[in-house]
């Protein structure tokens, strides 16, 4: 019995002494943390995707608390969007920066129908590996490889391979424009573009830099660099046989005309009623 009693007493004394030491240590080395950090972190989506340029949501909220009214305007959570940033701004008492909502678009329309496969691919299912092995099934050196690395990379499940076309499609409602697909695609086919009014946006769904005749051999809807679009809107530039429509070009103003005049159909407009275009 004695041994048990002495043990309890010894351990009790050690515990008491340690408690006293810990109490004073915690008083001495206390870190004051702004409670707003926790509050903002609660508002953020919590995906830790890194789309804002910070390491994660906690890191982003720390940056928000540190920022002043001016530098706060540079901070933006593309996943949460304007609504989230409004809430964060309310907590801090700043004005939220107004930014247009954005979405990822695929700059390739090399579907199984438009760019039929010429070779069969018998190797690991990965775009990054397929890019090393050869030019790809369609023969286009800049086109989609159809192995779905972007689908695996998307943290929000917004991408899926369309079984009919063979190329990935973006679910506009789920896409938060975090940019994971932009980083993953070995051919850089994704671009983050503004959603546009009523979801109407116009862009060139092609990344092929070959000469027109060569590009068309592999794909029906390739951009051939014919310069027709530059005559409709001066802001559009053609470089390396490839047209690029800047995000500042209004889809309402030029969209329909651009789509109508593109001889190969490389220019695509979303959210538009088709009858209107083909009047």
């Amino acid at each position, binding site marked *: 019995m004695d041994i048990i009693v002495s043990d309890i007493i010894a351990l009790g004394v050690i515990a008491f002494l340690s408690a006293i030491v810990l109490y004073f240590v915690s008083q001495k080395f206390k870190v004051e943390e702004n409670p707003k950090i926790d509050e903002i972190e609660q508002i953020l989506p919590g995906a830790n995707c890194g789309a804002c340029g910070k390491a994660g949501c906690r890191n982003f909220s720390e940056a928000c608390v540190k920022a002043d009214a001016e530098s706060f305007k540079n901070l933006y959570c593309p996943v949460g969007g304007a609504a989230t940033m409004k809430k964060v701004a309310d907590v801090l008492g700043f004005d939220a920066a107004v930014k247009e909502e954005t979405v990822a678009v695929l700059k390739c329309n090399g579907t199984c129908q438009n760019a039929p496969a010429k*070779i069969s691919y018998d190797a*690991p299912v990965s775009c990054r590996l397929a890019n090393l*092995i050869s030019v790809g099934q369609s023969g286009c050196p800049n086109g989609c490889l159809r192995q779905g690395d972007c689908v695996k990379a998307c943290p929000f499940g917004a991408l899926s391979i369309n079984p009919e076309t063979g190329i990935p499609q973006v679910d506009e409602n789920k896409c938060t424009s975090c940019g994971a697909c932009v980083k993953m695609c070995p051919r850089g086919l994704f671009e983050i573009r503004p959603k546009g009014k009523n979801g109407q946006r116009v862009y060139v769904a092609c990344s092929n830099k070959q000469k027109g005749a060569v590009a068309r051999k592999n794909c029906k809807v390739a951009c051939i660099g014919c310069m027709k679009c530059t005559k409709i809107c001066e802001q559009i530039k053609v470089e390396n046989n490839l047209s690029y429509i800047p995000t500042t070009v209004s889809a309402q103003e030029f969209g329909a005309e651009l789509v109508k005049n593109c001889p190969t159909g490389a220019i695509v407009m979303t959210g538009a009623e088709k009858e209107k275009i083909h009047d």
Partner: protein
Amino acid sequence: MTKTFSIGGIHPDKHKITSQTPIIDAGLPEYVYIPLKQHAGAPAKILVKKGDKVKVGTLLANADGVISSDIHSSVSGEVVKIDDVQDALGYDEQMIVIKVEGDEFEPSIDQSADIVKDITFSSEEIIQKIREAGIVGMGGAGFPTPVKTTIPEEKKVDYLIVNGIECEPWLTADDRLMVEHAEEIVIGAKILNKIFGIQNAIIAIDENKPEAIEVVRNVTRRYVGVNVRVCKTKYPQGGEKQLVTAITGREVPSGKLPIDAGCIVQNAGTVFAIYEAVMKNKPLFERIVTVSGDECAKPQNFKVRVGTPASFLIEKCGGLPDETAEVIFGGPMMGQTIINLQAPITKLTSGLLLLSEKETHRPDMMDCIRCGKCVDACPIGLRPFLIGICVRNNMIDELKNIHAMDCIECGSCAYICPARIPLLDFCKLGKIEIRKKQKGK
């Protein structure tokens, strides 16, 4: 005693079915397509223009910078196009297209079959001749030979190793070259001896080439300073670093070249080209190519002009059977599957293989079972499974720490893996990612 490297290695099936087939001239195609980048380093600068008449051996493009190489015409005829043409992988590459007319050589080239034995040139003259002939390492890496033979002053060459291993299955180009042109290769080794001022050339031959060993050994008895060493058959014995270890017992340090271990390794084909360049004034415009594979009707060893389309050689060997699953440039272990049959043979193409579905099929990848076979097989002593994990998770800094850059891309790990993980592809991808990151910094 036969020698081999100390760690790793595998034993794939040899399939050397063309080792008894003599080298024959493939003849001239209608058009040749000569790429401007057939070597490591910068592409050559074009000297000719459309419509120019060229002869065999005419300089078409000259080296752009130190690490680059001259390119010569392999046929006589007219330049019809200088444009982007699809290469073997389907990507665009600038090529010079020549329409073949007759077969007229530049007058400076000695076309006689006599073997010239006396080396009367100084070492600077020899290096100059090698540079003017546009010689590159013909084992596959294509490193410009004049750069390799110019030794920095603080370094010393103890051994010259002539690489006659040819450890890739199916290929017999170097094997046949050694059997039929043994004396030229030995004289080529003597020429290199003279550059480095040594008497220590070693011709390393795999023990699965008994005919080549005998022929070359008989020739070396008549020459001082050139010896034959027989190596045990193991893949990748033909790798520079493995060969240095096998012959000298020295190890090439990480990230360094064989010269840092006092060795220079030259492929047997390159040594033959050096002989022809120095003694016969003949630029590098043709090479030996093995056309083989289980789908090939008539496997052959050809002497092929650079720029000859692959389809021309396939026709010579009885056409392309419908069952062919893959056509490969080079060997099955390190070669590239080509998707364009019009792709030209370059200075670096040692083989053209037509393989069936059975030989080439890659089953679906399964999960790693941690058996450690890839670690056993790696001849460098890396951990390929770890490289695979790091690449899949984009851990580029980690990749550098586990020495992914030392990978020689031999493919032993992917060959041995029971879970069929494409470890070789991951290693290649990892090396590209590391280089990308270094450039970005």
